[in-house]
């Protein structure tokens, strides 16, 4: 099974700490290319810490992150983005910034880039918002524009921290379709989720974070409560029938 699935992202005996306090240790595993892996765990279990470690924003105390995806093809959508909503920029301009990492500092955009930008916006249903300032967007529209930027970036590794929080139902459907399409083209997607229904619709694999450790399991195991960590996962997802000890 292992040999069948390529993996551009592997964790080797990873130990991560925040403010000299170990948050995760002995994390060993790989994220399958072209699969959507859900990251679940209670608050403070280390989901954001693991994402920071994977993105190279946090230096491991021990072990290493083996990632063969070039930096310009990595994208991260944190839960609370440090995005200035009064910034004088339109939706189209934001989407086009996805070209920057690979495009360099000086080269201008050509018609092909703008065409691709328009295709991306059409796919996300935000063509009519192309010239609207960022400050006038709803939460869902902003999230669509940000996913549009990662599409322009042609991201090969995409990490999302609760992408469906404060987002309307229609946007959730659109984003799920786009994420599934991205995965189908081989993009490795890791997504922090708290909703069991969203998890079962979207994820191919699940990583449960509990007591400083990470365990890889399947969506079915979580749903049926079979895996050793399923109880924790079900608890953190708020599934009825599981009580905290």
């Amino acid at each position, binding site marked *: 099974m292992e040999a069948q699935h390529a993996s551009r992202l592997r964790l080797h005996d990873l130990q991560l700490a925040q403010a000299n306090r170990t948050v995760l240790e002995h994390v060993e595993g790989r994220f399958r290319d072209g699969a959507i892996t859900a990251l679940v765990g209670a608050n403070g279990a280390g989901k954001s810490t693991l994402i920071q470690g994977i993105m190279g924003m946090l230096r491991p105390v021990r072990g290493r992150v083996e990632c063969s995806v070039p930096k310009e093809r990595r994208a991260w959508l944190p839960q609370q*983005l440090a995005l200035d909503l009064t910034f004088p920029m339109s939706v189209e301009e934001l989407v086009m910034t996805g070209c920057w990492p690979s495009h360099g*500092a000086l080269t201008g955009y050509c018609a092909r880039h703008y065409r691709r930008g328009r295709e991306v916006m059409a796919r996300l249903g935000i063509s009519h918002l192309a010239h609207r300032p960022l400050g006038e967007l709803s939460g869902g529209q902003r999230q669509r524009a940000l996913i549009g930027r990662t599409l322009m970036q042609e991201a090969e590794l995409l990490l999302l921290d609760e992408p469906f929080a404060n987002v309307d139902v229609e946007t959730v459907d659109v984003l799920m379709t786009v994420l599934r399409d991205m995965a189908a083209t081989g993009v490795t997607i890791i997504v922090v989720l708290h909703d069991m229904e969203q998890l079962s619709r979207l994820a191919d694999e699940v990583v449960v974070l509990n007591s400083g450790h990470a365990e890889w399991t399947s969506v079915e195991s979580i749903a049926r409560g079979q895996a050793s960590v399923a109880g924790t996962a079900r608890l953190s997802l708020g599934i009825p029938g599981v009580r905290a000890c």
Partner: protein
Amino acid sequence: MLDAMLWWFTAPLEYTFMRRAVVACLALSLTAPVLGVLLTLRGMSLMGEALSHAILPGVAVAFMLAGFSLPAMMLGGVAAGFVTVAVAGGVTQFSGLKEDAAMASLFLVAMAGGVLIVTRSGNALDLGHVLFGTVLGVDNATLLLVALAGSLILAGLAIAFRALVMEALDPLFLSLQGRHAGWTHALFMMLVVLNLVVGFQTLGTLMAAGLMLLPAAAARYWSQRLEGMLAIAVGLSLVTSVMGLLVSYHAELPTGPSIVLLAGLGYGVSIVMGPCRGLLVRYRRPLRQEAMRERG
């Protein structure tokens, strides 16, 4: 009437010192507001203001060593500005505190030290020149330095513009790319220092940030697009700096405060009249909505 107006604009330009002053102001106006717009978008307006005072010790040491030589004082200012930026960055990294806290502390020390050095080695008039600018005393050598610094700033802005905009919009996106993040910030701060030193000739160390921040703050009330904001800020800066010079000549007022006050007037008008978030627009919008409701 027309002749009188024409005379008002052209008569001062018969003097070489006024022509030099106009060129210095135009050079400053092409770069300062662009940096100012980026500073305001990054929420660093007060950092720019603090940094303008931090160049004083370098200016003062150059004054002590070379007398009232503007080129020497410019070089001293650049050195002091770079040292302050480096120390503030170092303190921030070491302590984990925000950069503006380190900068606020450093600029007070720098300002006090600078004033002490100038008063010990000069007189009150010299201190006045350093604090409030001497644009009418700009000679050819200084003008060349101003032009050179302005060209360097424009070239730096052109090369790093995308990275600077991205750092202002979404620093995380830029830092994930790794290679640009630290350098972008350092380059930006260096360009700001360089521009403040150019501004110090015109407006003095106390108000060097005036043409940087006031037109930039005003431009936010006129445009919701970055290009629009930049164009408006540069335009406003060009008009207010030249008009400030002319007003100061005719009314025999100090040049620096005249320019800054005119830029301030532009800011005040923008707050009231600006089509984006201006007071009049905000007042009119509910009225229009009410009228439409009544009609509907």
